[in-house]
């Protein structure tokens, strides 16, 4: 997995609450058996009209946000289905950080497995970041995972929380499965005990 430590980039403002996974990547794109290539269909139904022309009003279609690497959004981002295609599409588009007041659990988890940092902050701070993002491509936000800070284009600094283990994995690009397999002995011991206590499983 790709490492994440620092990121300085353009933030796209997506001032909507309950951005759901069907919006992020509609189901017609779930038929792939690969992880890559979903970026062109990120936010597909908001991004293109029926004739597949870009809808100019949509934030990621605006020239100043085409190279966005950060999204600032409203409450409950990523709600809906468990589809990991949502973070795959976000990452494939080039976005590595999503900032919102809150996230749906499964989406939040899925981000970390794909080198994306989701940051939850209080609404007042989101309001400041949303304004900053609205300034367009001149405004670059800086995310420092090590220090757990976001710096706006005006130099205002916010700190954020992140689970220590998730941070460690993200910063080092660690693969969960490899880490878990180092604990194979614990799993074997658990299985042997469970075979005695709950043999019907």
């Amino acid at each position, binding site marked *: 997995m790709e490492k994440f430590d620092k990121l300085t980039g353009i933030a796209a403002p997506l*001032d*909507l*609450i*309950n951005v*759901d996974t*069907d*919006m992020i990547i*509609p*189901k*017609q794109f*779930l*038929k*792939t*058996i*690969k*992880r890559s290539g979903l970026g062109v269909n990120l936010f597909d*139904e908001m991004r293109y009209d*029926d004739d597949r022309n870009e809808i100019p009003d949509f934030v990621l279609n605006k020239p100043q946000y085409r190279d966005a690497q950060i999204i600032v959004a*409203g*409450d*409950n981002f990523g*709600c*809906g*289905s*468990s*589809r*990991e295609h949502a*973070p795959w599409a976000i990452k494939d588009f080039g976005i590595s950080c999503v900032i919102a007041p*809150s*996230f*749906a*659990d*499964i989406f939040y*988890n*899925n981000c970390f*497995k*794909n080198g994306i940092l989701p940051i939850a902050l209080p609404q007042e701070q989101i309001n400041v970041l949303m304004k900053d993002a609205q300034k367009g491509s001149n405004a670059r936000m800086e995310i420092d995972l090590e220090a757990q800070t976001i710096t706006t284009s005006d130099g205002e600094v916010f700190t954020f929380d992140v*689970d*220590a*283990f998730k941070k460690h994995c993200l910063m080092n690009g660690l693969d*969960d*499965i490899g880490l*878990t*397999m180092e*604990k*194979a002995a*614990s*799993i074997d*011991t*658990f*299985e042997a005990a*469970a075979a005695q206590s*709950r*043999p*019907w*499983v």
Partner: protein
Amino acid sequence: MSPKTLYDKIWDAHVAHEAEDGTCLLYIDRHLVHEVTSPQAFEGLRMAGRKVHAPDKTIAVPDHNVPTTLDRANAATMTEDSRIQVEALDKNAKDFGIHYYPVSDVRQGIVHIVGPEQGWTLPGMTVVCGDSHTATHGAFGSLAHGIGTSEVEHVLATQTLIQRKGKNMKVEITGKLAPGVTAKDITLSVIGKTGTAGGTGYVIEYCGEAIRDLSMEGRMTVCNMAIEGGARAGLIAPDEKTFAYVMGRPHAPKGAQWEAAMNWWKTLYSDDDAHWDKVVTIKGEDIAPVVTWGTSPEDVLPITANVPAADSFTGGKVDAAKRSLEYMGLTAGMPLSDIKIDTVFIGSCTNGRIEDLRAAAAILKGKKIKDGMRAMVVPGSGLVRAQAEEEGLADIFIEAGFEWRMAGCSMCLAMNPDQLAPGERCAATSNRNFEGRQGRGGRTHLMSPAMAAAAAVTGHLTDVRDLM
């Protein structure tokens, strides 16, 4: 010993490893797999030269994009990309030696209906699936999480999930339900009250007299939508109804093992003085038959209400409601029961079980659907379908003018050809009314099977109590 909730008890029984920071490896008893969220996980295993750790605890069934038309045995009815996914699952099931119910098997159906039906889901288990509606299995008092594809791969390889413990939330539904009010009305009303993020970070336990009174089918409907309330899992303590449902199922324990299992299962309840981080109480009598008006499952109102005005909300919800009303083509103030319907969809893992079909058929018996209406019933599994035919329900649906389909997810998410056209308005028994969920531009109103049947008869959203 300090008092525990049901969630605490199941959690504690499944921690295989706990790191100093509280990150746990949770052992997984059952892993359910479907064709859409698993191909990349199996591909990952192959690339790393890994095996499935516990193939006998892993069960696969294609459901999301299989056609539900009667001629589906003919592979040509599937689009190329859907066929590739189903064939990938066929191959992966075979290569990795996991249990499999192919499309040709009468036991095939929606993964969350097949699991309980076959006795794979049992009380006190940990159950995962690469699908957010895995919460359904919580109805058995099992801890059931939806997971992403990376986690699917992790569980395949290690039979564990990396987790931190969630918080405990109690949702109590007291007293009795009024006639015409069902499990779907309970679960939608809870979301209407707590919002789609109200359960985020929590595991919900549903309890109270109205929950106890529900059948297992009804309890599955309630737990199914825990995720729409933001909770990754919802559960209900097992009781005599649970045990009666489980007993004799193909993969349920038998003989001495049944006795041993029962001894443990009977300890699976929340202790009286257990700690709850959040409690929500709703009076059963206060719940009405409800429908959704917007594009979020929290947009719930009694059928007797009017379409709300966007500015009756606060915060970000004002803009969200504006957007919803525009998308749904509704004007504030109009009675919900005036909303005309083009299509009715009865099915999904929320309401595709036998009891749901009985409830809808009870309304439709001897009636016809409104002229020009498109209506379909998609049973949740081949066995539900067979039972409904045996009980004569299929005839009632067909005589009323419904299409009688084969089992699958179908128009719940419209990955197969069953889709809404732009602007088409659907009364659906499924669980999500997001923009485009049932087809681009499609408009979805969520409700119970009885309410959907009532709408099919009258052609507009209808208070089912008027037809009872």
